[in-house]
């Protein structure tokens, strides 16, 4: 739970120097710089006859704002080319460039190169007596040395920076520097040195009456002390309480203040639970509960996974304190899902498995305890191997040491487990038999239900699959009559030497086939696509029947054709029906088919297909006289499809056929109304 807040503080210090922000700059041709427009305008402002200082400054700005390390290096070196003359303005730009170059190298883990450039810029700031920037550069030098793991130099340059800052009395900066230094010591587990530096930061904050900095310092001091030693726990709590009070009375609602305040809450909760464990006093545990709640809620709301986990772990400690082990286990199980987040690295797993190990041991579940202890050690070693602060040799020594301790733990746990087994065997053998019997029956019952459930599940899957296959087949189906009759028409055009018509007819036919093929691959198509294929179909039929009928497709204004979706090829069979049975036998006047689409209460589409044909009764009569028992394939398919679509929840398609008659009862035609629900 020793979390570094170093980046936070370093970021504050960086603000007075050029600072580059590098998102994960994806390299390669797809990378587009988010600041490209600003970069372009800076580059455009450079004319061949611009003075060198303008060129130097603009290139340097480009280097600073680009998000690509290579671009940044390229332009800062370019800028340096224009900084040859020596006067103070150019000196500043040169130092600025050196800092940008250094930062780029630092980001690339080339800290030695970064150091060279930091020294160059420090020399310039020294020459122009810019103490403040000189000090800031020294802090960066310190950070480079920290990266190279040369600790003596880290402290040397930090102290040098702090001395300069004291000289120019830049209090806010001094406080940051001391806190930063404290943080470095803290990360090395040198707690005495850490508290010493935090104390100095605190002194400066008190002197400058900077309440918020005081609150931060009390917080860092308290956090460190609570890790440092059991004897300092009271002092740690006192400091953290001061910090919390200050944050609560003086803190603003700005995010960084809130962040620090809740960090203080979490540290205080951790200190309280430690005190509770040391003394066994429940009041401390209850105090812990109050603060842990606040911290956890906050971290959850801002999505800070690591801190959220740390505060929940503190709650797990609280549960363990009250011996509520099963609750603790449940809590840990709840936290498992956060383990998979990206920013959660090996040390996160290490802590998590250690808690699981502890809780399982308390619960007497030694098998799981062993399992998680094993995992804990595994991650602990992985973490050590990853850590840059340890050399490989150190890691190996540690590894050997850990293997020993693993073996030791295994041995003790195994002995304990054996001991438990003996107790069970001698004292409660009869009870074991009963339990085993009950278990056997239970397993039997569970197996039975499991078997039944899987079987049902499989059956369901098969049924759905069959349904889907059938459906896609149905969608593809165009009445074969239509296809062959259409081809026949082409033959007819050719034989009658009407090449032009043959070609036009064939093109439309091909276009319709293409649409049907495409539509058969999807379950829903947009209404506009469906109407386009209908209109193609109607054109073809019209040509085939020598323009014996005409048609119109009307869509009312409220229908959004491109947005609304319908099952493909649902309307076509009704139209085919209207042509073959209604219009083909019509002897008086021109046939007419009207397709009208409108919306009904905003939740369903109403499609009306009206023909002025001979009507169903007469059609049946004709069919009987001809002696043809034609059963429309299209209609049968459509009925099947309607049934299938309706077998799905919420989809209630309906289809109503009306015989249109005049007052005297003479047939005027047929109207089919299809209601298609819209999702």
């Amino acid at each position, binding site marked *: 739970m020793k979390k570094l807040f170093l980046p936070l503080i370093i970021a504050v210090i960086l603000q007075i120097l050029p600072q580059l922000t590098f998102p994960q700059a994806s390299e390669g041709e*797809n990378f*587009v710089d988010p600041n*490209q*427009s600003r970069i372009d305008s800076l580059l455009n402002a450079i004319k061949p006859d611009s003075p060198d200082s303008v060129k130097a400054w603009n290139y340097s700005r480009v280097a600073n704002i680009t998000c690509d390390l290579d671009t940044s290096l390229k332009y800062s070196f370019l800028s340096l080319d224009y900084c040859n003359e020596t006067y103070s303005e150019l000196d500043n730009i040169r130092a600025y460039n050196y800092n940008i170059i250094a930062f780029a190298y630092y980001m690339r883990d080339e800290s030695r190169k970064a150091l060279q450039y930091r020294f160059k810029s420090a020399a310039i700031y020294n020459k122009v007596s810019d103490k403040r920037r000189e000090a800031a550069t020294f802090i960066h030098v310190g950070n480079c040395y920290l990266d190279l793991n040369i600790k003596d130099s880290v402290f040397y340059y930090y102290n040098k920076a702090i001395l300069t800052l004291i000289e120019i009395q830049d209090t806010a900066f001094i406080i940051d520097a001391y806190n930063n230094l404290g943080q470095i010591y803290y990360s090395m587990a040198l707690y005495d040195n850490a508290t010493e530096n935090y104390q100095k930061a605190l002194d400066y904050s008190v002197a400058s009456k900077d309440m918020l900095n005081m609150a931060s310092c009390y917080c860092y001091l308290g956090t460190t002390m609570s890790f440092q030693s059991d004897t300092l726990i009271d002092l740690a709590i006192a400091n953290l309480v001061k910090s919390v009070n200050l944050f609560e009375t003086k803190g603003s609602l700005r995010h960084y203040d809130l962040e620090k305040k809740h960090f203080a809450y979490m540290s205080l909760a951790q200190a309280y639970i430690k005190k509770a464990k040391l003394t066994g006093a429940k009041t401390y545990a209850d105090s812990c509960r109050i603060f842990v709640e606040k911290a956890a809620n906050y971290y959850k709301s801002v999505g800070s996974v690591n801190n959220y986990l740390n505060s929940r772990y503190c709650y797990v400690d609280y549960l363990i304190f009250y011996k509520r082990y099963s609750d603790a286990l449940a809590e840990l199980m709840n936290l498992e899902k956060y383990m998979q987040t990206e920013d959660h690295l090996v040390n996160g797993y290490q802590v998590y498995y250690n808690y699981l190990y502890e809780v399982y041991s308390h619960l007497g579940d030694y098998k799981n305890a062993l399992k998680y202890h094993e995992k804990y050690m595994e991650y602990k070693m992985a973490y050590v191997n990853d850590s840059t602060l340890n050399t490989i040799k150190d890691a190996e020594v540690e590894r050997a040491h850990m293997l020993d301790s693993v073996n030791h733990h295994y041995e003790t746990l195994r002995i304990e487990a054996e001991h438990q087994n003996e107790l069970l065997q001698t004292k409660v053998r009869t009870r074991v038999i009963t339990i085993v019997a009950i278990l056997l029956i239970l397993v039997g019952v569970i197996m039975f239900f499991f078997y039944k459930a899987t079987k049902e599940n499989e059956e369901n899957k098969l049924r759905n699959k069959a349904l889907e296959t059938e459906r896609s087949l149905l969608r593809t189906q165009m009445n074969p009559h239509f296809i062959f009759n259409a081809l026949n028409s082409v033959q007819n055009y050719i034989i009658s030497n009407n090449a*032009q018509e043959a*070609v*036009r007819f*064939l*093109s*439309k036919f*091909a*276009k319709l086939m*293409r649409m049907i*093929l495409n539509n058969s691959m999807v379950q829903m198509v947009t209404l*506009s696509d469906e109407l386009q294929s209908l209109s193609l179909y109607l054109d073809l039929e019209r040509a085939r029947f020598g323009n014996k009928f005409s048609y119109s497709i009307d869509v009312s204004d409220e229908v*959004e*054709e*491109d*947005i*609304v979706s319908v099952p493909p090829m649902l309307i076509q069979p009704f139209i085919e029906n209207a042509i073959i049975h209604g219009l083909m036998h019509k002897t008086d006047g021109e046939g007419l088919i009207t397709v009208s689409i409108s919306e009904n209460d*905003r939740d369903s589409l109403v499609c009306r297909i009206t023909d002025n044909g001979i009507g169903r009764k007469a059609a049946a009569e004709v069919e009987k006289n001809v002696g043809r028992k034609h059963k429309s394939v299209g209609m049968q398919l459509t009925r099947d499809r309607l049934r299938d679509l309706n077998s799905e929840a919420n989809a209630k398609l309906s289809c109503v056929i009306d015989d249109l008659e005049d007052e005297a009862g003479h047939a005027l035609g047929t109207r089919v109304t299809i209601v298609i629900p*819209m*999702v």
Partner: protein
Amino acid sequence: MIKAAIIDDEDSGRNVIRQYLSLYFTDIEVIGEASSVKSGVKLLSKQTPDIVFLDIQMQDGTGFNLLELLPQRSFKVIFVTSFDQFALKAIKYSAADYLLKPVDPDMFVDAVEKVKTDFEKPAPAKDARIDELLTNINSFSKIGLPTNDGIQFVKVDDVVRCEADGAYTVFILENGQRIMVSKSLKTYEELFADRKFLRVHKSYLINTRYVEKYINGDGGSVVMTDGATVEVSRRKKDELLNMML
């Protein structure tokens, strides 16, 4: 006289194009035909036609392969294909000219007329669309937009949204540029179907990666990263929210 070449591995395919040309375009002369990638390359390195009618799927390779073998080409290409979804998508992305088999005579006349007007414009000898087509063929990262001043290529990922303007479509890019294109919004809805684009409204197609926030309502609306508010159709609300999750 405009010179044309026809490359197709089927006799009937070449025949139809030849007949159509003699029927509708008396000012175009067929100077050569080829029936494979190999013989096509040979033909085109000897002759210099103005238009090439090029089949995509041939026995010994594709029309794209043929073009790759002729980097110095100076002719216009009209692709001819039957049912090759992938090739068709690539062609549409590059805004190249194409015809579907069986060839519709009206479409044929339109396509050839369009190429003929391209000859009148002062344009570079080499057709940039074909270069883009060949480099883009596996990635579909760029789309060719036919504008008044010619074809403009933009990265699909840079498109923030598209708006219908009558039969035209206005593209709005990440850098704020607006491009008016003489094709319908539906064309691009289909081309970008698998690219995290969604037709949220009859007049709007948006790149969901540029959605900043969703404002609840009957259908609601979305605020894009460029600050524009786009209305969402009631029926597209669920699909949009599903896509954003």
